[in-house]
């Protein structure tokens, strides 16, 4: 079964003021990929809440998921979008963030790609040490790694791909 809504427009070509976000949804009951959600977001942190709600709702609609799983997925997605918008695209309105969320039988996969220069994930400090506990920043990647079951970056460091097992 295929269900399509209009493909996500490139936010750079649109009037962003008050523009509702659009997602591209593909549902398939026969293959391992049950639902695939794609969208492209402007580099604007005020869209993160709506984007997370929309993507998680479409991705899990009609499928069983525990409250904790929905919570972890929402937090991890919010972190990825915030990192992409703030650190990757540095809120440059000429850049956007591509998102893919895919529900499979046993897991959800997320892929978030920005248009920034990338970073070295190995260089990120542990925010839970006594020295860094009162730092206002630096917990995003730590939370992603703590809540997701697998995390990978591309070699450039501007695309994160992660997996959460369905529980």
């Amino acid at each position, binding site marked *: 079964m295929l269900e399509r809504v209009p493909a996500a427009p490139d936010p750079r070509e649109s009037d962003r003021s008050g523009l509702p976000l659009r997602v591209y949804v593909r549902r398939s009951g026969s293959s391992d990929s049950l639902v695939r959600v794609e969208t492209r977001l402007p580099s604007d942190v005020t869209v993160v*809440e709506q984007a997370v709600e929309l993507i998680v709702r479409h991705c899990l609609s009609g499928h069983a998921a525990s409250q904790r799983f929905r919570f972890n997925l929402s937090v991890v997605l*919010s972190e990825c979008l915030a990192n992409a918008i703030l650190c990757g695209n540095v809120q440059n309105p000429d850049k956007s963030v591509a998102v893919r969320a895919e529900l499979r039988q046993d897991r959800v996969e997320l892929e978030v790609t920005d248009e920034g220069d990338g970073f070295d994930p190995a260089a990120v400090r542990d925010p839970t040490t006594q020295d860094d506990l009162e730092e206002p920043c630096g917990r995003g990647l730590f939370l992603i790694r703590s809540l997701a079951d697998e995390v990978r970056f591309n070699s450039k460091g501007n695309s994160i791909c992660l997996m959460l097992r369905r529980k």
Partner: protein
Amino acid sequence: MGFTTEKNAGGVLVVRVEGQLIVGNRQELKSVIQEASDNGERKFLIDFSKTGYIDSSGLGALVSISKKIREQGGELRLSGLNEDLRSLFELTKLDTLFAIADTSDQALAAF
């Protein structure tokens, strides 16, 4: 999504986070607290019983708020964290930094 504030009889400003506390609205919470602090408020309770989720930006904002309140001789307590939210504080070890009560009544009684 939003914040409601209410001053209780004991002089504690209770801020309720309704919805999410994330990258898109953390500055708003900081502004609410800062403005109240500038107006002389010193006792703060942030209640999360109506909160969906918090991201690292929200946690970072709470750390900043806590620092500022402490520097000004004030006191901050948190309450109403459900099991999911509490797990974020435990993972990041921020449960060791904040005074966290199960309910707002318990937190208010501790001021």
